[in-house]
């Protein structure tokens, strides 16, 4: 039985990472250029701009919105969004009556194809542990005060299903184009810890 060493003299994590990379690269087991490609993909190509496009389209195309809510995976694939951590997508709609918010208490499962890699707050133990127990309080601490009569539904990802929030379209945006709407949509609104403001 072996396990990552657990002695008290900790090696700084950046040095540890470099050591592992060297060991694997010098034996030809890992190609550093492949690593660069993975990193660049999630720095440049796969991020919340994808999800914002989905939201803006759902706000302006009622038939797309219906498909999105019935078959999230299929609907976002129409826009070319699929890949790791996007095997089965369930889209839930926020309204003035119901507010949905997503978490993964066990790790930090997140819909990568639409939102990229999760932000620090989503991975924070305080968020993971508390939003399933006192979501109204946690959302308040994060700056989102919901009306008392708004029902809250928390979605905790356990399997490979990924949950995605379709935020409420802000008032006063009736004349906005799809692109203008997409520019308003934030990452945090698509997880349910914020609302979209015009």
């Amino acid at each position, binding site marked *: 039985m*072996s396990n990552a060493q657990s002695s008290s003299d900790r090696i700084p*994590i950046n*040095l540890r990472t470099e050591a592992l990379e060297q060991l694997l690269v010098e034996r030809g087991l890992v190609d550093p250029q492949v690593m660069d490609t993975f990193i660049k993909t999630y720095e440049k190509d796969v991020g919340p701009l994808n999800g914002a496009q989905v939201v803006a389209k759902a706000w302006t195309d009622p038939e797309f919105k219906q498909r999105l809510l019935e078959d999230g995976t299929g609907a976002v694939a129409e826009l070319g969004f699929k890949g790791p951590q996007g095997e089965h997508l369930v889209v839930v709609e926020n309204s003035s009556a119901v507010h949905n918010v997503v978490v993964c208490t*066990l790790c930090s499962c997140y819909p990568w194809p639409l939102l990229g890699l999760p932000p*620090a707050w989503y991975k924070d133990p305080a968020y*993971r542990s508390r939003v399933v*127990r*006192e979501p109204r309080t946690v959302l308040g601490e994060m700056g989102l005060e919901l009306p008392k009569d708004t029902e809250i539904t928390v979605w905790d990802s356990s399997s490979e299903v990924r949950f995605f929030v379709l935020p409420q379209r802000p008032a006063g945006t009736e004349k906005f184009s799809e692109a203008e709407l997409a520019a308003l949509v934030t990452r*945090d609104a698509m997880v349910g810890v914020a609302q979209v403001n015009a």
Partner: protein
Amino acid sequence: MTEIQPASGVADMGGDSGWGRAPIIDPDEAVFPEKWEGRAFALALLSMRLSGSNLDAFRHAMNRLDRERYIDDGYYGRWLYGAENLLLDSAIIAPGAVEARAANIAGGHVDEPPAPESTKPDYAPTAAGSIRQIDAPRKFTVGQRVRAKTMNAPGHTRLQKYTQGRVGTVAIAEPAQVLPDTHAHFIAENAQWVYTVSFDSRELFQEHAENFTLNTDLYEDYLEAAS
């Protein structure tokens, strides 16, 4: 070949207290605020392939970490330690090799253990990803009352402790998926139906809890019919 090693318990933190105030959102946060985080991310993805394991084994490799290793270097810190566990399990790297190399990079002169003979798990997935087509009928239907079982799994599980023993209602019938509990240990895929189950917050956290609905997607093996 991997033995079944227990989770440390730190990862299963849903409903726990003691983690402090909710985090502050930084809307301009970089994807990888430090360079090593991107390297650790990529190394972990490649280590899953190199070690001949799978995503469930990787999650369990992180859940095995003690609290210090799980928490102190953040998300990509546990990815790196988890990746090391997978590489040690499959004898892609030798115990002590990373520590010795780190010491030498830092200017030391330490003997490094030779690369071992690898022992990858005797395992191959039946398809890509986790979703499978199965013929078995569903045990539960939407609207049915179900109880999350109380399970003391020796190894990996995705059944959170805060849902165990609690009664909810099936809200969504989800696609069939491989069971992490056995897949993580290369025992079997055990593909089975998954259900999103709705729990009343007061069923989970007593009568004084905030009033809300908690939905979570649970595997059929985790559930039993409730009246």
